């Protein structure tokens, strides 16, 4: 019996591994530029990721931002509505664009 108990302790011990102390997940707030279309960006992008993922891409072309937005829909399954795509891309290019179409 003791043996069985010992084995089951070994087997289940790891399943109940717990964090002993409080976990504090660092929060970093990213300053994002305000402008036309911001509400749409906030609603669609912030539901999954911080603005850091936008700001840290570096200035990019309109095509880049369109492709990124499409990637969010195709691969990450963003439930963004079709009519919001233009607004989001326009905002991203306006504020985080490099002035180039392609």
């Amino acid at each position, binding site marked *: 019996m003791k043996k069985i108990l010992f084995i089951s302790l070994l087997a289940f011990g790891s399943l109940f591994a717990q*964090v*002993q102390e409080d976990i504090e997940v660092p929060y970093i707030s990213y300053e994002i530029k305000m402008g036309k279309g911001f509400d749409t960006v906030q609603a669609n992008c912030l539901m999954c990721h911080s603005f850091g993922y936008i700001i*840290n891409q570096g200035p990019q072309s309109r095509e880049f931002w369109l492709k*990124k937005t499409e990637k969010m829909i195709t691969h*990450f*399954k963003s*439930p963004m509505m079709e009519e919001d795509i233009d607004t989001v891309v326009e905002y991203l290019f306006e504020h985080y664009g490099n002035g180039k179409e392609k």
Partner: protein
Amino acid sequence: MAGGIQWDSGAMGCAKWKGVRLSDLLNKAGLKKDAHWIGFNGKDKAAYYETPNFVRELELEELDDHVIVAYEMNGEDLPYLNGFPLRLVIPGYYSDSWVKMLSNITVTNKYKSLFFMDVAYRVPDNATESETPENKAKKTKPITNMNVKSIIGYPENGMKLYHNAHLVIRGVAFDDGHGIRQVMISTDEGKTWNEALLKQEDGRYAFTEFRFTYKPTKYGKLNIMAKAINRLGNEQPLSKDILWNHGGYKYNGIDVVEVEVV
């Protein structure tokens, strides 16, 4: 500029990992004869329920006895953000494969189609692993082994240093586990290179520390360059000679720090 997070010299680290050999786990579980692929999934779920999980799939033959499922980092439980309680550690591989909060290991004989394997984190599958923005490589492969690289930690960009004063240039170098043979330092735009002193105490996968003493004898701007060479003889290219890929992956250009001698 490649798209994606602009990491600069960020997102690198060196820690002491302790864990269970993956091969021991697999032996205990017992693999079937036709086992070929091994998939790793973690507990880090996306915010939206339809977003696919980050699953890393590798061929069994890629994995050697150095691959572990780690439960300790630097002698303690893994910190939460480093993948508590269990994390896959593949020495020599870039860490996009080091699945955190490991929850499932699945062995199959058939390859499953996965976004993070088939689309993301891939490099061109050609001799130079390069492409151009206009003509992207059609054939790609997952990112695996780390390129030889070094980073200057001190001095930092933009620092003012005293003329004729004693300076110790310091930094770290690493590769995919072949080991660092030399780190060379140049203070004349790469015309001449001098060997730095190395400190290698933690095995061939760990950071090699380097130091080089130097006395700046000219006033004004000074560029300090560091170039690592591994035991295969692979060395870092100048950043201007780095060939492009769409993710900026595996970048290993020679590090340059610009300081001012006053």
